[in-house]
């Protein structure tokens, strides 16, 4: 059989295959260059960026949990200027789309940053993080209130022609309502899920195991929840969806695609094995070949219910 076609287009961005790396789990790409071929994955989503550098939360910040992990990094990042100066030069050298994940504390900050990113030619698209549960002041309210989400997305839309992906929080009663608000604000695509707020206790010290008390749960443990939300959103909303949450294999990725995702992001699996994203793309290709599917796009949303 011919080599199956794995290419997809999401929010106007052409990807050689549907496997992207999830923000915050793949640094700025460079860190992983030794372990995989960055030109064999669909896209790189960089660590959540803010206008100014951010310190992030105190330590400890991460903890293994059953089948998953909690993180409370607190969106530590180098800030837009250092990103331009120190990270973009490397990203420029690889022929893989770069999507910049970013956030702000106010609608104005989101817009100001989006305006700045709009001028960086190396950036194929932006992913608005309205959903990080580890930031106290900002973020969180946008991720759980449809009106606030609408305002952020619309403000970003007004200042950039780059494709806009909005990354949704799972910490809501009704994810579809959130998705619809983003669609109405003219987002180009949706990605979900971000981490689920969780907590761990260290019995010995009788303290929270994370300095921030709560953190975001990710990894295989959350996969069933992510898959359910992707399915709900993909059925209800016209925008293309990027499935995220606990993907560690080609099979996992294809399950999200059947449930309605056009592409996927790989997060925690990068820690389990730094070459995971490339391997997942290869496993997808193998499955398509073995099952006589010529084009991955034929599978999107074809779950038989």
């Amino acid at each position, binding site marked *: 059989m011919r080599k199956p076609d794995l290419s997809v287009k999401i929010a106007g961005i052409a990807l050689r295959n549907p496997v992207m790396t999830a923000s915050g789990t793949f640094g700025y790409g460079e860190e992983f260059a030794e372990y995989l071929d960055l030109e064999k994955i669909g896209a790189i989503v960089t660590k959540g960026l803010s206008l100014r550098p951010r310190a992030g939360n105190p330590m400890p*910040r*991460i903890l293994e949990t059953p089948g998953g992990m909690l993180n409370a990094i607190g969106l530590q990042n180098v800030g837009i200027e250092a990103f331009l100066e120190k990270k973009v030069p490397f990203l420029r050298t690889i022929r893989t789309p770069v999507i910049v994940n970013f956030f702000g504390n106010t609608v104005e900050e989101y817009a100001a940053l989006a305006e700045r990113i709009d001028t960086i030619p190396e950036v194929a698209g932006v992913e608005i993080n309205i959903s990080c549960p580890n930031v106290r002041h900002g973020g969180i309210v946008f991720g759980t209130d449809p009106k606030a989400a609408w305002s952020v997305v619309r403000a970003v839309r007004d200042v950039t022609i780059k494709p806009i992906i909005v990354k949704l929080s799972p910490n809501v009663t009704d994810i579809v309502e959130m998705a619809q608000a983003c669609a109405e604000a003219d987002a180009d695509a949706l990605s979900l899920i971000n981490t689920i707020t969780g907590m761990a206790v260290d019995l010995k010290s009788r303290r929270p195991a994370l300095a921030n008390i709560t953190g975001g749960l990710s990894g295989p443990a959350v996969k069933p929840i992510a898959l359910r939300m992707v399915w709900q959103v993909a059925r209800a909303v016209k925008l293309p969806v990027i499935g995220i949450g606990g993907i560690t294999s080609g099979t996992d990725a294809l399950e999200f695609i059947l449930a309605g995702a056009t592409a996927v992001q790989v997060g925690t699996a990068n820690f389990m094995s730094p070459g995971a994203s490339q391997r997942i793309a290869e496993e997808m290709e193998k499955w398509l070949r073995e099952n006589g599917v010529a084009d991955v796009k034929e599978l999107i949303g074809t779950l038989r219910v």
Partner: protein
Amino acid sequence: MQFKSMVVFNVEISPGYRRVRLTAPRAMLEARPGQFVMLRVREGIDPLLRRPFCVFDTGTFSPEYPGTPRQHYFDVLYRVVGKGTAILAALHEKDYVDVLAPLGNGFDPGDPREEKILVGGGIGLAPLYYLARELVRKSRVTAFIGGRRKEDVLCVTEFEQLGIDTYVATDDGTLGTRGLVTEVLEENLSGGEGSRAVFACGPEPMLKVVADICRRNGIRCQVSLEAHMACGMGACLGCVVKGESHTEAAPDYRCVCKEGPVFNADELSWE
């Protein structure tokens, strides 16, 4: 690099402490003292994350099979503390683990004319033997080894075999001096002369005292730190420590995995 390693042996060296020998590609022989590895001790999701361990030693041996080429290896000295190390402890000869290595920066050996002073507490010995092996080639080396009880004092014989003056202290006096290894260190340092460099690894309270002693005596001190890690390559920002200039407004966080695990003590904020 990433590679699969076969277990050559996996033995208890003291109650609760073990040494595992793992096959490795040639490049592993160039791992620097103080660098570390991330081991996936079992396939699947339990445990989910890799576990970080220092390189305890590297070398080459001849397998027993006739005609097989010499085999490179590295050793890990580890304490069984939780799930991951328990699974590691249960591995048999010929079992496999998946390895990322070598990671981190490693110790800076510094000027060979300095006297090299190693300070290790408990499993903190892990990176110091490999370092000592390198340092003794060119420098005078002294080692201070501490532990709670006799069983926690590791590798004294190995250090002595390298011809290193070795001081031992235990909290309960079951081996060497009764008391803290830092007390023994301080006593000896105050008597000493000439330019010296300290290399320390062990529990944080110990490192803090060592750093303080060195600061007061004007001695350069390198410490090897631990932190919970997810990626081991500077990507997740899960493993940071505060640098010496850290403030909320101008954060100075350093990744233990990438900018460390070895730091100059005076680069860090000891609070």
